[in-house]
């Protein structure tokens, strides 16, 4: 199986661990992630205003590129997924945006949301299947109590993201279970960590991160996983070191035996 893959800017620099172990794991699972040629940054936030067209074009280019290769587009970073998936919804559903974006790009074949956008976790759940993943696990993470941190971008708005139940998601818990570890459900797992305000209002970002980590720890989690480099930064740097935070792909790579266990 081969998918087009959009890594995004952060995964090439500060978020390398998310990317490297993500690719290595998929390789081990027999899936090829082929990086889109000449991809551009998605913009990191989805422009909500109806008259924001130009800021959506880099996402449209990525979507068109995947379409032209006849492949589904896989994302890994929460922010990239959020932006690209929502832009794709606009291209499929909003005639105003579709017309204008196509006018800008002057494509041979106009784009209307044909590409299927999948988050890495959705590939695991819906394409590979957690049952199959469980069979591939070489080093089960038995005895580890892990809290999944979803944050906001993967889940909301659920009408567009269609990722999981926005108030009671289970995909990352099922993932943790497939790796042989014990998922710890805690209510703050779908609340915002405050990461976006880290530049202007660090005390607030820290307070919000602290709430997330306290809740996870108080519910019995010994470590946290995330799919978002900004959450990773905020929980780690502003969260006071209450719990270790890892990318979910690191955990996956450990369980599949492609990465040395860190303890």
């Amino acid at each position, binding site marked *: 199986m081969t998918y087009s893959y959009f890594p995004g800017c952060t995964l090439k620099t500060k978020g390398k661990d998310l990317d490297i172990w993500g690719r290595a794991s998929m390789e081990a699972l027999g899936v090829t992630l082929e990086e889109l040629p000449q991809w551009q940054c998605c913009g990191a936030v989805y422009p909500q205003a109806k008259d924001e067209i130009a800021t959506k074009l880099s996402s449209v280019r990525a979507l068109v590129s995947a379409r032209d290769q006849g492949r589904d587009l896989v994302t890994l970073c929460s922010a990239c997924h959020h932006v690209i998936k929502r832009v794709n919804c606009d291209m499929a559903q909003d005639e105003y945006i579709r017309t204008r974006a196509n006018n800008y790009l002057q494509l041979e074949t106009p784009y209307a949301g044909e590409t299927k956008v999948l988050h890495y976790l959705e590939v695991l759940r819906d394409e590979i299947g957690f049952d199959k993943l469980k069979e591939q696990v070489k080093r089960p993470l038995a005895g580890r109590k892990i809290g999944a941190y979803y944050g906001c971008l993967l889940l909301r708005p659920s*009408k567009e993201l269609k990722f999981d*139940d926005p*108030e*009671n998601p289970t995909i990352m818990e099922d993932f943790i279970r497939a790796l042989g570890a014990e998922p710890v*459900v*805690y*209510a*703050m797992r779908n*609340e915002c960590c405050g990461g976006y305000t880290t530049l202007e209002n660090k005390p607030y970002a820290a307070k919000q991160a602290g709430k997330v980590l*306290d*809740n996870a720890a*108080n*519910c019995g989690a010994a470590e946290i996983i995330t799919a978002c480099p900004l959450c990773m930064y905020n929980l780690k740097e502003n969260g006071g070191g209450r719990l270790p935070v890892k990318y979910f792909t690191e955990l996956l790579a450990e369980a599949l035996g492609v990465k040395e266990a860190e303890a």
Partner: protein
Amino acid sequence: MQKIGVFVCWCGSNIAATVDVQAVSDALAKEPGVVFSTNYQYMCSQAGQDMIQDTIKEYGLTGVVVCSCSPRMHEATFRKTCEKAGLNPYMVEIANIREQCSWIHKDKETGTEKAIILGRAAIAKVHLNAPLTAGQSPVTKRALVIGGGIAGIQTALDIAEAGFPVDIVETKPTIGGKMTQIDKTFPTLDCAACILTPKMVDAAQNENINILSYSEVESVKGFVGNFTVTIRRKARYVDETKCTGCGLCTEKCPQKKVPNEFNLGLDNRRAIYIPFAQAVPKVATIDPNYCTMLKTGKCGVCSKVCTAGAIDYKQQDELIEREYGAIVAATGFNPISMDKFDEFAYSQSPDVVTSLEFERLMNAAGPTGGTLLRPSDGTHPHTLVFVQCVGSRCDGGEKGKPYCSKICCMYTAKHAMLTREKYPDTDVYVFYIDVRTPGKNFDEFYRRAVEEYGVHYIKGMVGKVVPENGKLKVQASDLLGGQQLHIDADMVVLAAAIEPDKSARPLATMLTASMDTNDFFTEAHPKLRPVESPTAGVFLSGACQGPKDIPDTVAQAGAAAAKVIGLLSKDQLTCNPCVANSNELMCNGCSACEKVCPYGAITYIDKDFRGPNRTTLRRRVAQVNPAVCQGCGACTVACPSGAMDLKGFSNAQIMAEVDAICK
């Protein structure tokens, strides 16, 4: 040629303001066959009706056209008027020049022109009208009530009181419905069981009432006065006639881990069970999903301990068929699932409960014996947060319901008040969007909760509940106080929206009764016929028609009974003569009509027809049962050969109207 009289009504200024009624009556006077034409201020008044009757006699009219309001309003009036003057009532046609003309036009010239055209169409139709005679059909003097909650019980009791036999079909092992689970009732705080169980016993003892518990309606055939209903009596593996309700089996059954639905899963029951002490009928039922004997063939403890020999592991579902004259839907409601509202952490903490679960936790017969204890650890809660409108008043997406569930404001006030009364050491918060308490002594009740019992009513909503370290961290808005509140609560109680029982939709299909988009049964008229379905002979009782509290439900249940009694007290029903009729000479026996008929009124017979040279031809032709046909006309459209026609609305009559309009 018909001799037609035309009567144009002014309807005060309703018609006359935008239609020149004199011009209309003058123009229509010139139509072929019209021998008399006039206009009058109120044609439906006694004077107007007298004028019509006098004219029929004086001019020997064979047909009448009244240009007035909608036929839904006064067609019956004018038909009766003409019948009294010796004219067949089906020789009367109404031209609707009010709703379809004067009310929607501003320009008098246009309005007048259209009124003349509508009058002309009616005249064209009358030329082709033929006198019709209504038939009669007998009435089976027995009623069926579907659903044995307080609505169904009250309807059945009232029908039985009038002397008619009535069957209650209830899907659960006992009648009583939701009210059996409720602790106290607002606004008087009398105990629900104390006022309900005597009624349940009355129903059981009334010789006109037959309770079919643990049973479901399987199919419905027939029509008003003559329904044939098949009822599935589910196997309860206990002989109802032998079981004494001693309850020994329910104590000895070794399968103890069955979630007890009566207590909403807050505790367990056995595989053989009697739902609660006052159940009617007080008969045990074996749950086949949990019974070891039924699943593996090994056990048989209940059979051994039963001195009455009532246990019968071989019992099968039984189908019975019965005749009824009237059917009452009383299928009730359920709270919606909290699955999509997990910001309240319902799935994450047992201390987040729905209001119905809270009723059980406050009830002396409930899992905690009436002491309010937290489900998680059995401790006494000190801070309670009630959230109203959970899933009500949503904008109609996938989540929630667009309507107000109506009962939540009052029962939440009740819960808050009872909590404070029983446990003065508690802090009780109620988050509301609006407090809606119209009803006798209702607002006074709510004010008492605030003023006497010190319940904190906060205008705002709860946005998130985080269970942590044995507490429920509630984050909420306080809109009047201009702050976001953070409350460490011990319990959170969700006033879940209510929805019609899931059995209502398939039942509506069986009854050909209409429903709204929320699966509530639709009434025949929202104001004037609130307890009748538009389908003749089908009546509505309780929350299956819309959210209702107990007083409203009982009132409506009585009203539905009154309508049923009115129907059953008739020996014969007059049928609508405007029914379909098949021209056998044109029918090719294709079955197209039979397939579209929603009432099952069409059958096929093989019939001999005379052929050329003294031969006979046997052909398959459609036959309409006029007592079953409702005159919907679907068959006339489906018929490819033009054999099927509707009396009073024949294809020729409709075409004549169209021609008159297009002329």
